[in-house]
């Protein structure tokens, strides 16, 4: 396996070939770094390329295999890390001004787990400044370009991670998600991305945006690869009974209903709010995806999610208050070091009161219970991930900030309710617009029910070919 085949090989395939000595981890790292070098000028996915760390890790994996020691489940798999997550010996930039950078002395817990599993940490990916926005237009490091149309945004804030996976620059990547920052770029770049249940993946060594809403999770080209990465990041891989990949691969009954694939799964369609104000192409594509799930044996029914429209209000208040609290000291002394849109988002937080914040936290508890009610009639909820496909990059200084602020409201509408509730939510490709832009489908489950969310996603993926399409990069 080499060239384009290797660039778009799955993590599972790469790890299997490296373990069987059909391929060395060094060969994988070399191929990956060469492709990054070729495409970085066009896509700007990376802030830092970790060649030395990648080769050192590859040698360690190859040595282990040569000497007959156990190689991890991600042996030789190139993984990119969002540059808001610590990797030992590397500066964590948050894609922000240099005064906000920090030198990481140790790996973030999730990065350490990936390394221990044999992953090759190939680079630190570009993001919306401080992970506080969805366009990935960055005043310090430049915009990330969508591989499907470089004139368009990749979505954010984990835009570099999603674009790198879509472009075949790595087999998987890590993102963070406070209002949709894994799922939005996954949707706009045509890859799979899962925001797991709140707290499932440790956030030690991840620079916070808003503690109450922050999550970390994987992006990959297939649902199975996302499960493989999540197993490692969540620490479940060493506990076979909790392994998500084991759940996906098992032939027997996986749920209490004894179903496999999507058969027998009750798919809830929350028409009100989550299927409103859609771009017509997105609506058509997502509706077809639901019909595919029905054809796979899922029971599809409309469900109510009471008070869904209030979730975004609670997220806005909690996010603004917590982000401003985290940045307060620097914001007071060096406000001009933030990009215009992020500065505005942070400064507005000063004007919320303590009672506003507590009201939002009380609303969080209330809405968590209300959202759970929808799961009395459904096992998963399904909806489009975003209302529209990727929009053009607006980096005109006179309008970029206003566009960024508006896009945040627009693109997080269907994603941020699940940061508030902490429910697991997967985005996976479900079609393309006439302009060739990917559209994402979001599958949401009960807390800690990642296995079912991933299982339904894998069933859909197995019945379709969207995940096999490649962006036109020549």
């Amino acid at each position, binding site marked *: 396996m080499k060239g384009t085949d290797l660039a778009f090989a799955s993590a599972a395939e790469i790890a299997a070939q490296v373990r069987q000595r059909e391929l060395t981890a060094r060969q994988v790292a070399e191929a990956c770094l060469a492709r990054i070098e070729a495409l970085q000028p066009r896509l700007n996915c990376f802030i830092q390329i970790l060649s030395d760390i990648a080769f050192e890790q590859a040698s360690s994996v190859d040595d282990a295999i040569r000497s007959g020691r156990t190689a991890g489940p991600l042996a030789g798999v190139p993984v990119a890390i969002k540059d808001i997550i610590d990797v030992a010996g590397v500066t964590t930039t948050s894609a922000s001004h240099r005064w906000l950078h920090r030198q990481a002395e140790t790996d973030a817990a999730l990065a350490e787990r990936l390394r221990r599993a044999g992953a090759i940490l190939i680079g630190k990916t570009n993001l919306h400044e401080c992970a506080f926005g969805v366009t990935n237009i960055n005043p310090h490091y430049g915009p990330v370009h969508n591989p499907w149309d470089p004139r368009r945004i990749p979505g954010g804030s984990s835009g570099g991670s999603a674009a790198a996976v879509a472009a075949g620059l790595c087999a998987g990547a890590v993102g963070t998600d406070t209002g949709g920052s894994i799922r939005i770029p996954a949707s706009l770049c045509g890859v799979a991305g899962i925001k797991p249940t709140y707290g499932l993946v440790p956030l030690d060594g991840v620079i916070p945006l808003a503690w109450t809403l922050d999550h970390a999770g994987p992006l990959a080209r297939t649902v199975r690869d996302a499960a493989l990465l999540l197993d490692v990041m969540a620490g479940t891989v060493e506990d076979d009974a909790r392994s998500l990949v084991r759940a996906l691969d098992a032939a027997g009954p996986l749920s209490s209903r004894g179903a496999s694939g999507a058969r027998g799964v009750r798919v809830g369609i929350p028409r009100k709010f989550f299927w409103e104000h859609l771009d017509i192409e997105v609506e058509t594509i997502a509706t077809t995806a639901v019909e595919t799930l029905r054809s796979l044996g899922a029971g599809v029914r409309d469900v109510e999610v009471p008070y869904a429209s209030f979730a975004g209000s*609670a997220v806005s208040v909690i996010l603004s208050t917590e982000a401003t609290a985290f940045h307060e000291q620097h914001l*007071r002394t060096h406000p001009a070091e933030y990009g215009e849109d992020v500065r505005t988002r942070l*400064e507005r937080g000063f*004007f919320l009161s303590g009672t506003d914040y507590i009201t939002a936290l*009380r609303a969080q508890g209330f809405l*968590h219970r209300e959202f759970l009610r929808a799961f009395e009639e459904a096992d998963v909820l399904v909806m489009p991930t975003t209302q529209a496909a990727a929009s053009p990059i607006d980096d005109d200084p006179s309008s970029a900030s206003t566009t960024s602020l508006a896009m945040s409201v627009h693109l997080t509408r269907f994603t941020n309710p699940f940061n508030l509730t902490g429910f697991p939510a997967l985005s996976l490709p479900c079609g393309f617009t006439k302009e060739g832009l990917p559209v994402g489908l979001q599958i949401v489950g009960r807390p800690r029910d990642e296995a079912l969310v991933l299982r339904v996603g894998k069933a859909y993926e197995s019945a379709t070919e969207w995940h096999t399409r490649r962006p036109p990069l020549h």
Partner: protein
Amino acid sequence: MRLPTEEDLAKVAAALGLSLDRARIRAILPEVERLFEAAQRLRELPIDPAQAPRVTEHP
């Protein structure tokens, strides 16, 4: 409740010791208004008055 004005924000900024000039206040006013409306809207939810907030973990 009425939306905050530039004057309101200027007073709060001064009280909090924030170095926001009038141009900056004018620039952020629409976002402050949006947040203010969001915070007010949450008060319409039928939440049990005795319900405690969860500060560091999800329910």
